[in-house]
């Protein structure tokens, strides 16, 4: 160990300039290596893309994809302007009608333009969060129950094992039919497609959280449980002072896995069910078959990846804020 440190320190000893260089050298790998990785990926992508010709034209390289990303932003801005114009016209028209006839009840109509890429992102994000929340609200308490009571675990375990490996796409037709049959209301607060997508996401988000919570709770240090017994803590105090704090890391491991799965499931479900969202955007572009389609799909692919990454980081920072163990390495 001491040898290691001397070797590392050697370059810094001769002069100040050298020490600066060595410090730069020491800190660069953290920044430099990911950049190198990224550049290599772009180069390979660029090279390979040129040699692939599809029926929709050449496979898009980084440049075309970047261009289409700009186009999608422009389309979104244009659509927003159209919508604003539409609402302004509607307001002016209604104001004029009310001025003519004070008893007139003005009708407000929604702008019906096609949703842009960014609208679809928002829809998908909203759907995955709702689905994930529903799953968490169910999975964490059931997981805690399974962890605390061996009989509950023995009863529920076969169901977990049975449903855990089921693909979301197998659930989708069932969920669609059940939602159509049961979710009947004259003025629905949410669209049916939204409810279907959210529930499909929930069904797949349940399991990792449930299993990890159960494992976390059942592995609480036996001495801490004895402390709780000696103190005769009430069940509520036992839960809040002992069970939850010690199983928080495992609960969050489960939640992060669930959110990742939920995000993947959602895109697939949207593609298959033609429910609004990023999946539908991808499918529409594929069906559209223009020469730009592949580049636009690639934008969506990268966006999906980036959002998945951000969601995971978000969960990680929530875990950091909630967890008592600030020294633990979270990745």
């Amino acid at each position, binding site marked *: 160990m001491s040898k290691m440190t001397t070797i590392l320190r050697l370059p810094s000893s001769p002069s100040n300039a050298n020490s600066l260089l060595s410090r730069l050298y020491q800190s660069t790998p953290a920044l430099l290596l990911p950049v190198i990785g990224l550049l290599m990926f772009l180069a390979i992508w660029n090279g390979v893309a040129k040699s692939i010709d599809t029926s929709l034209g050449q496979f898009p390289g980084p440049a075309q994809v970047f261009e289409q990303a700009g186009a999608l932003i422009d389309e979104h801005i244009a659509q927003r302007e159209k919508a604003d114009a539409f609402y302004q016209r509607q307001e002016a028209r209604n104001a004029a009608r009310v001025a003519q006839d004070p008893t007139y009840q003005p009708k407000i109509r929604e702008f019906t333009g096609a949703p842009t890429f960014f609208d679809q992102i928002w829809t998908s994000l909203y759907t995955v969060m709702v689905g994930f929340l529903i799953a968490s609200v169910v999975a964490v308490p059931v997981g805690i129950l399974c962890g605390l009571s061996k009989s509950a675990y023995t009863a529920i375990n076969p169901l977990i094992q049975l449903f855990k490996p089921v693909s979301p796409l197998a659930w989708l037709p069932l969920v669609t039919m059940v939602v159509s049959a049961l979710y009947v209301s004259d003025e629905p607060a949410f669209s049916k497609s939204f409810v279907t997508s959210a529930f499909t996401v929930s069904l797949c988000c349940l399991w990792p959280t449930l299993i990890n919570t159960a494992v976390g709770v059942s592995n609480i240090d036996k001495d801490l449980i*004895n*402390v709780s017994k*000696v*103190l005769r803590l009430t069940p509520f105090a036992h839960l809040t*002072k002992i069970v939850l*704090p010690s199983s928080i890391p495992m609960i969050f491991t489960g939640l992060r896995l669930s959110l990742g799965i939920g995000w993947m499931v959602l895109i697939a479900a949207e593609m298959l069910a033609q429910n609004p969202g990023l999946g539908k955007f991808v499918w529409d572009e594929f069906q559209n078959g223009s020469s730009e389609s592949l580049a636009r799909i690639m934008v969506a692919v990268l966006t999906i990846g980036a959002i998945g990454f951000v969601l995971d980081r978000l969960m990680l920072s929530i875990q950091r804020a909630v967890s*008592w*163990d600030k*020294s633990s390495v979270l990745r």
Partner: protein
Amino acid sequence: MHTKHLELEQVGIDFPTPKGPFTALQDVNLKISKGEFVSLIGHSGCGKSTVLNIVAGLHQATTGGVILDGAEVKQPGPERAVVFQNHSLLPWLTVYKNVELAVKSTMRGKSKNEMRDWIMHNLELVHMTHALDKLPSEISGGMKQRVGIARALAMEPKVLLMDEPFGALDALTRAHLQDSLMEIHADLGNTVIMITHDVDEAVLLSDRIVMMNNGPAATIGEILDIELPRPRDRLALADNKQYNHYRHEVLTFLYDKQKKVETVSSRANQSPTTNKHSQQLAKPSGVSSEKKDAKKSDAA
């Protein structure tokens, strides 16, 4: 000192195993007076901890039972506070909050100020008021054990149960904590049952040393009354004839009468003479455990 306080009567316990029940303890009888300091000593695996856990109510005796002040012990409770070997502080609570949890759950109905004073009083007893807002991970092993003792004392227990409380500490820290424990015991006069592997610790602290036979079906082998005057001073006692006599008694029991049963192969290689035993006797007590413990413990 002769009032009936804590009684263990014909205590025995079976643990279920795939090959049928395993009798870990049998016919353990012990009467302990109020304010008495009793040590349980014996080879590892002889069931010392099981005895303590039965008194704590964490294990249920299969036969016999434990009576504290006329009432049978059926479940764990704060009147039989436990100091665990590995401190068992809640790692997500600060020193103060760890003791507060004990105070809040055992002294319901007291005012906030009374509770605060009581928490501070107990932390003062163990000299830990300087680290109120530290998490257990931020203090040394000896300090953690001090807080563990403060938490147990804060429950105002009738009996303080200590399961090798200083086993994981280095020798110097252990000596410090032993002195603190003697002070506290002299102040408060709690009844204490302590498990230990350390012969010196047992002789220094105890009024009586309960020596246990090896299992299976372990029971009490001998009981040694320690009639050294209190307060006891470890330096003065080091040269004390009576003290060394007590030590010798315990060592003889442990290494001669209750020699740890070795595996069949190692026993076959061993000569049947007592040479080996006398070697072990010559060795200062506690050395082997100290070596092991020094690795584990954080410096205080």
